[in-house]
């Protein structure tokens, strides 16, 4: 029997077909709750976020400073070596202006997700966050940005302890919101 089938099966339904009792349906809301262990690396990451700092891990073999931190290097597959503080400033690697929320609601003002390459980490190494305090029209790839931290009393040990990243002039310094401890080089 040569050739693609002459007809294809499938019974499309319109949204309205689901009401009126002709199409039989059931629904189910699964109760799925989790208690995830944060692990060594992210556990420390979150603790440092609560203190108003960003921390990374360093691999001697690859000579990479990695954020988010991880206890093993996924490239050379060995346990990596050191905890390293990095700065809370960086450069926008890419961004978007999103007018749709996670549950498909239309937004008036766009959210501005971005990948921000963090100063002090290996170039090209970034984290995802949102930009704020900026006109969406002014956002550019390559823009310098700094973290805007929530006040210490509001920080809980979460990535949202950084409220957003805002634009910063070239050569500017970070830590605008709160004074941070200076980098230490013990151990």
């Amino acid at each position: 029997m040569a050739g693609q089938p002459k007809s294809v099966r499938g019974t499309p339904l319109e949204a309205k077909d689901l009401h009126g009792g002709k199409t039989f349906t059931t629904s189910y809301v699964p109760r799925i709750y989790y208690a995830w262990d944060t692990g060594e690396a992210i556990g420390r990451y979150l603790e440092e976020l609560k203190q108003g700092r960003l921390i990374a891990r360093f691999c001697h073999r690859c000579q990479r400073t990695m954020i988010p931190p991880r206890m093993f290097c996924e490239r050379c597959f060995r346990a990596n070596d050191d905890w390293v503080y990095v700065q809370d400033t960086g450069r926008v690697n890419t961004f978007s202006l999103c007018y749709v929320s996670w549950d498909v609601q239309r937004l008036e003002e766009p959210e501005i997700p971005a990948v921000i390459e963090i100063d002090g980490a290996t170039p090209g190494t970034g984290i995802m966050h949102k930009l704020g305090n900026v006109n969406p029209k002014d956002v550019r790839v390559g823009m310098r940005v700094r973290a805007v931290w929530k006040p210490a009393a509001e920080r809980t040990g979460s990535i949202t302890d950084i409220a957003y990243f805002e634009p910063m002039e070239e050569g500017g310094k970070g830590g605008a919101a709160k004074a941070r401890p200076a980098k230490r080089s013990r151990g």
Partner: protein
Amino acid sequence: MKKVKKTRAVVAAPVAPPQRAAAPAPTRASGVWPGSIPLESFYTAGLGGQIFFQALKERGELVGTRCKGCKQVYVPARVFCERCFVELNEQVKVKAEGTLASFTFSFYDRDGARLGEPLVLGLVKLEGATTVLLHRLLKVGDPARVRIGARVKAVIKPKAERVGSILDIEGFVLAQAG
């Protein structure tokens, strides 16, 4: 067996060493992060389901489909035979009664809480079907009367209460003294 060639570890050219952070404070190394996955699942009954639930809702009947080649009657109705894969077009009305292929008394609910009265479940082989149907056993007086092979009858809700759901069958009761 082929010998695996060992590759030499490549160490990257050193870059200026970053300033090391302090060793972790002696608190617990990991915490717990709570989360959930918010979802609602919505199911259509499908082609086979439409046949079965339509018959149940409109006429209070239990309908299956027959595969002649495999000598099977599938209840609830299906549109294809899983064994030989042909399309099934012959509908068969089966009796709303049959025998227990198996049963259980469940003393816990789905969340693990103890039930006051056990929930009794049965696998019912309806007369005329080759499949068994899972449903509740109702009004179980003496548990000893619940036996494999016992005759059971379906209790079907009145038409006004039927919506086209498996719960249009209230459950099954043991047929007369046996």
